[in-house]
């Protein structure tokens, strides 16, 4: 099954070095010209730039909202808690296509022009619930008596947050940051509907492939991007496993939450 999952990508990567405009066997020769072509293509670069820019803005906002939501749902008891939890969990359940279509109509109705901003705003909307799930899973496993100990030793409530609670959720925050960034960067469906004429990297790939059969520079840039993403996930894994020494660690719930979110 690993073959099924990664085989096609290996093939794609292999062809990115193929010295032929036709993506078919046999191999014609080794070349890196697709890579230089790709990195010189202005539309492609614009798409990459936009995707990165949006992702860099979306990630901190999602972290903030997601952490607030996680705190709201796990650390207090109040009547509306179930409602808040349901509300925050809802975007994880609704297919993105529907959110995208709805958002398009929504912005149109409010006469908000479609732009990178509308893309970003909707990315945050679907990303921060995932952050909330991951951070929440970590918060729930927090022993409140440690907080009591901190209070008893003279720490005021905000010092407790700063010195005790936040360090505890730090690994979850790091993991969420990476997932939120990927969510935004890889997002196609929502960007497609709410971006108007703006170009992001996935949208560029889609348009290019819609109109042409197989394009070698797509191979090249895809290989590059995939390598970066694999490296990033590995780094994230290392980070979260490394913090085991300080009482951190990868939660099964976090992984499950991530996987559930990825399906959307």
């Amino acid at each position: 099954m690993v073959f099924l999952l990664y085989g096609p990508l290996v093939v794609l990567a292999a062809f990115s070095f193929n010295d032929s405009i036709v993506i078919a066997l046999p191999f014609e020769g080794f070349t890196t010209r697709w890579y230089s072509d790709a990195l010189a293509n202005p539309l492609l670069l614009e798409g990459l730039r936009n995707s990165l820019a949006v992702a860099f803005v979306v990630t901190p906002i999602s972290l903030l909202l997601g952490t607030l939501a996680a705190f709201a749902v796990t650390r207090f008891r109040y009547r509306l808690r179930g409602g808040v939890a349901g509300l925050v969990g809802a975007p994880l359940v609704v297919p993105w296509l529907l959110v995208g279509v709805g958002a398009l109509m929504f912005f149109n109705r409010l006469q908000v022009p479609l732009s990178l901003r509308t893309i970003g705003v909707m990315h945050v909307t679907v990303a921060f619930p995932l952050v909330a799930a991951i951070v929440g899973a970590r918060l729930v496993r927090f022993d409140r008596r440690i907080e009591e100990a901190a209070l008893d030793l003279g720490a005021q409530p905000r010092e407790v947050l700063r010195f005790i609670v936040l360090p505890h959720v730090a690994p979850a925050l790091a993991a969420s940051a990476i997932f939120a960034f990927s969510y935004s960067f890889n997002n196609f469906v929502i960007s497609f509907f709410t971006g108007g004429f703006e170009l992001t990297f996935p949208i560029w790939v889609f348009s290019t492939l819609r109109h042409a059969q197989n394009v070698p520079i797509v191979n090249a840039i895809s290989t590059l991007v995939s390598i970066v993403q694999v490296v990033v996930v590995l780094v994230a894994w290392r980070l979260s496993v490394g913090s085991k020494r300080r009482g951190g660690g990868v939660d099964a719930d976090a992984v499950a939450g991530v996987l559930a979110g990825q399906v959307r």
Partner: protein
Amino acid sequence: MAVASARAEARAAAKVSGRVAAYALPPSIWLLVLFGGPLALLLWMSFQLRSITGATGYTLDNYATIFTDPTYLKVMWNTVLICTVSMAVMLIVAVPIAYLLAFRVRPRYELLLLLMFVMAGELNPLIRIYAWRIMLGREGVVNSVLQAVGVIDAPIDALLFTRLSVVIVLATTYIPYTTIPIYAALKAVEPDLLEAANDLGSRLTTTFRKLLLPLAAPGIFVAIIIVYIPMFSEFATPALVGGTSGYMIGNAIQEQVLEAGNWGIGAAMSFMLLTLSVVVAFLGYRGAKIRRLEASS
């Protein structure tokens, strides 16, 4: 004395609800506006007459159309067909794999494989779809290899731009999410049970049928919940590898909304899918809860 304490407790309670609001309000308001808003608008729009002619007004025609017009019915049937076949294929493959992963693989590799699943999900979906498109074409790797090995004489055209290609890509995309819940359910089984069955003389197939499948059932249940309905709204995959025969609801929605300007119909189809998703998710949530209660009793 008691009054003073009651007042102190009331003051503390007020401080707490202030804090709760500070945490809960921003995300809630954001979602109510930017998530609830669009979805509410979908609902409203689905009852609107919207077309290129510019006519407006309330109507039930949209829903009538999508449920009676043969074109739409065909598309919906196509979608159901593709998704159901994909789901079936995935389940058939996922159960044995989940079994192997849960019982026959060493712990070190288990973690590694889980990691590989997570990573597969992080890859850009469009890249994945494109990679398959390369593989399945006339001159693609699959055809070339099959010809070279001698299984076929001429390239199979039907590998690309057909329903089959959509099924292949969908299945390979969603297989990790199908396998994981089943794996999780099987992990909860004590290996002693299998040994006991063996000891009592049961052959592998019987064990499988009578013991493993029922135990894996909750996992299968969850897998269907998290995978089946999302597949219905797939749009990029059929657009890129489906050709004309692999046309699904997602494509129809996109076409109606972005190209034909028929927002009413697009919204009606979307809202129908939305309702389906919510109902299935709700049932799944209940089902999972009930099973958890059963498991603990």
